[in-house]
C-alpha cells in the first residue's frame, strides 16, 4: 500500500510538470492563438542553457536558474514576431501554419542540441541543484520524496494557483480570457490584441523556463531527444483534455503523471512508455475533440 502511495506522490510530481507545460501551451493557444507544437522543446532548450551557465559559473544555482528562465522568455519573445507574421498572411488566422512553424523551430533546436552541446550526449545536472546526494528530502515512514519531486509538486501547485489567480482576478487575466473567448469581440471593445499576445509569450516563457529548472531538479538530466518525448506527451495530454481547456489540462496532466508512475512502478522497461501512449492513442481516436471539449 505504501508503495502505491509513494508512486502516486511521484506521479503527482511528474504530473505537475505536465500540467505546467500543458498550461503554457494552452495559454499560447488561447491568447496568442498559435499552436506552439515545440513549446516543450523550447523548455528543454532552456534546461540546456541553465546547464551551460551552471558549468561556466561553477554551479552557481542562482545564475543557472536565472539563465534558464530568461532564455525561455527571450526565445519566446524573439520568435513571437515570426508567429504573428505568418498568422497575418492568410487574412484569417491560419493556425496550422503556426504549428508547422513551431515544428520547424523544434527541428532546429533538437538538431542543434544533438550536434553542438556535449556532442549530443545527455547532460547531467550538478548535485547541488538536484539535491540528489542528500537522499530523500521528505520521509513519511516508507514513503520518501526527493527534493525534485517535492519542488515540482509545490511549485506546480503555486504556479497553477498563481495562474488561475492571474486569469480571474487581474486586468491582464481578464484580457486574456476575453481574447480566448472571442478575439474579434475583444478587438471591438478596444483590447490591445497585439500587446496582450506578446504578454502571453512572455508569461509562458517564464512558465516554461521555470518548468525547465524543475525538470532539471526532478530528472537530474536531459538529452536532445527529451524535448520530442516530452512534447509528444504534453500534446497528447492537451488533445485528450481538449485543446485550450485549462481545467481539463490540469486533470489529464496529473492523471498522466500518476498513470506513468504506477506503470513504471509495476512494469519496467520501455514498454511502460508505450503503454501510456497506447492508452492516449485510444483516447484520441475515440474522442478526437477531447474528453472535456475543445475551447477552440
Amino acid at each position, binding site marked *: 500500500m505504501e508503495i502505491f502511495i509513494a508512486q502516486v506522490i511521484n506521479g503527482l510530481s511528474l504530473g505537475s510538470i505536465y500540467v505546467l507545460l500543458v498550461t503554457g501551451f494552452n495559454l499560447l493557444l488561447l491568447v496568442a492563438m498559435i499552436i506552439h507544437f515545440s513549446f516543450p522543446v523550447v523548455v528543454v532548450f532552456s534546461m540546456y542553457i541553465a546547464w551551460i551557465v551552471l558549468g561556466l559559473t561553477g554551479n552557481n544555482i542562482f545564475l543557472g536558474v536565472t539563465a534558464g528562465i530568461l532564455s525561455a522568455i527571450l526565445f519566446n519573445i524573439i520568435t513571437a514576431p515570426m508567429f504573428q507574421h505568418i498568422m497575418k498572411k492568410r487574412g484569417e488566422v491560419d493556425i496550422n501554419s503556426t504549428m508547422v512553424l513551431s515544428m520547424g523551430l523544434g527541428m532546429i533546436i533538437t538538431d542543434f542540441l544533438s550536434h553542438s552541446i556535449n556532442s549530443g550526449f545527455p547532460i547531467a545536472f550538478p548535485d547541488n541543484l538536484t539535491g540528489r546526494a542528500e537522499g530523500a528530502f521528505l520521509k513519511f515512514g516508507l514513503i520518501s520524496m526527493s527534493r525534485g519531486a517535492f519542488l515540482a509538486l509545490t511549485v506546480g501547485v503555486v504556479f497553477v494557483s498563481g495562474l488561475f489567480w492571474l486569469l480571474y482576478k487581474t486586468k491582464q487575466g*481578464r484580457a486574456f480570457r*476575453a481574447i480566448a473567448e472571442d478575439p474579434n*469581440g475583444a*478587438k*471591438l471593445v*478596444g*483590447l490591445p490584441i497585439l500587446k496582450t499576445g506578446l504578454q502571453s509569450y512572455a508569461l509562458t516563457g517564464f512558465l516554461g523556463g521555470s518548468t525547465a529548472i524543475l525538470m532539471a531538479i526532478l530528472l537530474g538530466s536531459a538529452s536532445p531527444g527529451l524535448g520530442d518525448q516530452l512534447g509528444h506527451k504534453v500534446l497528447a495530454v492537451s488533445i485528450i483534455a481538449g485543446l485550450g481547456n485549462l481545467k481539463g489540462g490540469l486533470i489529464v496532466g496529473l492523471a498522466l503523471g500518476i498513470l506513468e508512475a504506477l506503470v513504471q512502478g509495476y512494469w519496467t522497461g520501455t514498454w511502460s512508455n508505450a503503454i501510456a501512449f497506447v492508452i492516449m492513442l485510444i483516447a484520441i481516436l475515440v474522442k478526437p475533440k477531447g474528453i472535456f471539449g475543445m475551447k477552440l
Partner: protein
Amino acid sequence: MAQNKPAGTTILEVKELSVSYGHVNALKSVNIEVCKGEIVVLIGANGAGKTSLMETILGVNEVDSGAIIFEGKEITKKSADKIVRSGIFLVPEGRGVFSSMTVTDNLLLGAHHNLKGSKEKMDYVFSSFPILGERKGQVAGTLSGGERQMLAIARALMSSPKMILVDEPSIGLAPKIVNDIFDILIKLNKEGYSILLSEQNVYKALKCAHRGYVMETGKILLSGSSEELLNNSEIRKAYLGA
C-alpha cells in the same frame, strides 16, 4: 432632401470615407457628422454598411481613402485600443458580451484602459441598471437578451466615453425591452453622451434621435433631421410601410 446643418460643436466628422474588404466596396465616400450631445442614427437594410462604418470609426478596418476626425484630431490610422482610449466606445451588434465571464468582469473590461475610479463607476452603473447589480456575479451567458444589451451599454459607460457607437441594439429583443433600451439611450444622451446609433427599427430610432443618415450599399443616400426623415415619403414607403 434638404441638408440640415447641425448646430453646436462637431465631435465626430467622417469625410469621404471609403473602405473595402478585398474586392467588395463596403463604404463609398461616406460623409457624416455627429455634434456634441446629439443622437445621430444610421438607417439602412442589412449590408448597407452601417456596421462597417462603425467598426471603421473604431479603428478595426483599414481605410482606403478619406478621414475620420474625432474632437478635432484625426484618428483614421489609429488602432482600436488607442481610439477607445480617446473616448469612443462601441456597443457591438449582437451585444458582444463575453458569455463565459461574469457581469462584473465584463464591466471591468470596459474600464480596461483606466481602472482608476472603477469602483465608483460600477456603483453608478449598478444604480442606473439595478438588474445588473443583482446579477453581478453571474456569468453573462445566463443573462437574457435585454439584460445583455444593458450590460453592453453599461460596459461602454465604464470607459467614460465621450461618444458611444451603438450597433443595432434592438435586434432580437422584445418590443417592451426595446423601448427600455431606447429610454436608456435617451437618458444617457441627456447626461451628455454623444451617440451614433445604427438601427433597423427606423420609427423608434428616428423618434429618439436628433438627426439621421440613410445608407444603402455603402453610400449615404439621404440625411436630415429626424423630423424631416420621418416625414419623407420615400423613407415612409421603404422603411415604415406607409
